[in-house]
């Protein structure tokens, strides 16, 4: 199960992670819906792009620009959070969405926990494979922690000051109340 578009849904994608003996060139990518590591995509691009559906995942040190030109080929792009405190994935997501124009599913994988989901959805993630040892219904609540935000990101193109009429200090007597 994953969270997708703010609901809990079944999921049949497989995330391929290489073990120590495997290399990006030689690993056999299983049949079916597979999210492959970026190096596998770069090494086996010709074969993989023949598939009906393919996904790719980026490690936090990898660059989304490496997918430039290929962006439209993926049904899903995932960004891995090796630890929830590694925040590079937020900028990767923002760049994928805002700079590279990626529009299909953007999924957070790895150490994905409730208390980071609000921020993740703001930078462009719309799917979350939350950590399997945690209650996914509980995690869903993390998406609605706040009902208003100040600054722009991918989800909100206008800062608060351009979206709403905010009041200045009209009443001088407020100051000394």
């Amino acid at each position, binding site marked *: 199960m994953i969270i997708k578009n703010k609901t809990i849904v079944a999921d049949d994608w497989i995330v391929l992670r290489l073990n120590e003996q495997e290399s990006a060139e030689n690993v056999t990518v299983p049949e079916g819906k597979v999210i492959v590591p970026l190096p596998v995509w770069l090494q086996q691009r010709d074969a993989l792009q023949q598939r009906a559906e393919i996904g790719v995942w980026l490690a936090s040190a990898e660059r989304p620009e490496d997918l430039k030109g290929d962006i439209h080929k993926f049904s899903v792009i995932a960004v891995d959070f090796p630890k*929830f*405190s*590694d*925040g*590079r994935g*937020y*900028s*990767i997501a*923002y760049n994928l969405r*805002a*700079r590279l124009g990626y529009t299909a599913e953007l999924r957070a994988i790895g150490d994905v*926990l409730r*208390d*980071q989901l*609000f*921020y*993740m959805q*703001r*930078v462009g993630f719309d799917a979350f494979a939350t950590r399997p040892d945690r209650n996914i219904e*509980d995690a869903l609540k993390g998406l609605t*922690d*706040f*009902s*208003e*935000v*100040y*600054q*722009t*990101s991918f989800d909100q*193109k*206008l*800062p*608060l*000051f*351009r979206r*709403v009429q*905010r*009041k*200045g*200090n*009209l009443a*001088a007597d*407020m*100051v*000394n109340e």
Partner: protein
Amino acid sequence: MYRYDEYDQQIVDERVKQYRDQVRRRLSGELTEEEFLPLRLQNGLYMQIHAYMLRIAVPYGLISSKQMRMFAHIARKYDRGYGHFTTRQNIQFNWLKLEDTPDILADLAAVEMHAIQTSGNCVRNITSDEFAGVAQDEVVDPRPYAEILRQWSTFHPEFAYLPRKFKIAISGGKEDRAAVYAHDIGLSVTKNAQGEAGFRVLVGGGLGRTPIIGSEICEFVPWQHILTYVESILRIYNQYGRRDNKYKARIKILVKALGIDEFKRQVEADWADLKDGPGTLTSEEVNRVATFFTDPAYEKLTNHDSQLNEFKADSCSFSNWMQRNVKAHRVPGYAIVVLSLKKPGSVPGDTTAEQMEVIADLADRYSFGELRITHKQNLVLADVRQKDLIRLWQEATAQELTAPNIGLLTDMISCPGAEFCTLANARSIPLAQLIAERFEDWDFQHDIGEISLNISGCVNACGQHHIGNIGITGVEKKDHDEWYQVSLGGAEGNLSSIGKIIGPSFTFNQVPEVIDRLLQVYLRERLEAESFIDTVRRIGHVPFKEHVYATDFTVAEEEIADKHAVVPAQYSVPYYSPRF
């Protein structure tokens, strides 16, 4: 000052609710301590030696009397009757229970305050000039921009898990009073030839283990573009800042590694995409926020006051106080008053609940109900009528808030040190007290004049020892002994510099003697009206160093039966300093 509208209030209220639930999940075990740690840190909650410590944000150091009274309430209800003002213009409470913290945050939200991002690897509280809006040398009032940056950085989704903490300071005077050279980003608001406001942007400054003075990344960013420019700096840092080594993770290391030119190239390539986009500031927004920082209802007064002069002639204490703690105001007939939290023997920055309440009353009666917290851990009443100075001095003296030492030797910056902090190698506060006792004599201090003495309990430099004219650092030594390094020649302001260590380290009890020897060299060598730092710059370190190490120290070392009780090596058991 800034007042919350319904949006600000809603965001802060929702934060309290979110945090309350996080605490509930931690207490029930749903969250591990490892998972809870960054959550509580982003809410300013540390687990220290004795208890939880909560750091409350005071945006750019500005608070109302009502907020100060809330601090007094928190000190009484949840703490041990006092709080500690910090070099980040914030306040910390040191003796809290985890389960009380959601209620404390709810109390704070009721007076438009919070503890958001006062710790953790995110954008911290924005600091600014404590004399903003009233300083005579002000070019542009930095407060509206500080508030705009506060809102922009609050819960920024992309920059909540940076490689390391990120501090922004902003100043608007000709003289820098916000240590902009010592911040991850330092902003100086200025005007171009056309009279338009903009920012000189410095990046990669910082203290800590690797003190570095910030480099100029852009000479002038027009005000409209400051949010997007800062966003691009943070995005480059978030992606490329080191995450493999905590001690090399600050932006200064990245800027050094890339070089300022390459760093600037990357930032501006990112920025090209944002420039003139929707994140661009509007004049409507700047003007709206600026309406909260307009002048209070000043009276038409003149600077001359014969009564003041008479009283000065009568009272040496008052005269000393006028000279050190009262600063020129840009409006005739008004003065800026610095209330000293450094009475010799006291703990720098500590304030009791009773003092807080009196201070709030003083603010109401003498300064339009507002206060500022300074990065030197004092408090400011920014708008006092000169004709009220005598009465104010008398009332503040009753609360021991008028030590005439602003900018003098005993106006020390000190971190909490090893009695509170798990990082520190050595005690800071007792050392500050020992030094203050030794140099208590006001005539001596006034004769020495302008000098800064900054103490940190470890290399992390919370006490900003690198930019003290004299800096003291607790260094790691074996067997629970406390050793201190002394550095010389640091400075903040327009001529910021990093101090250099003078030589081998000293024991706790030797430090006051070391300072005395440094001062002897200054007294011997100074030219007329030359400040300590100017003498150091003119004659260099050598004469100071030679004199300090020329003769042995005869200070009696106090016999400490149980060294572990003074500075424990590990804090796995509750540790109580002899002071408590």
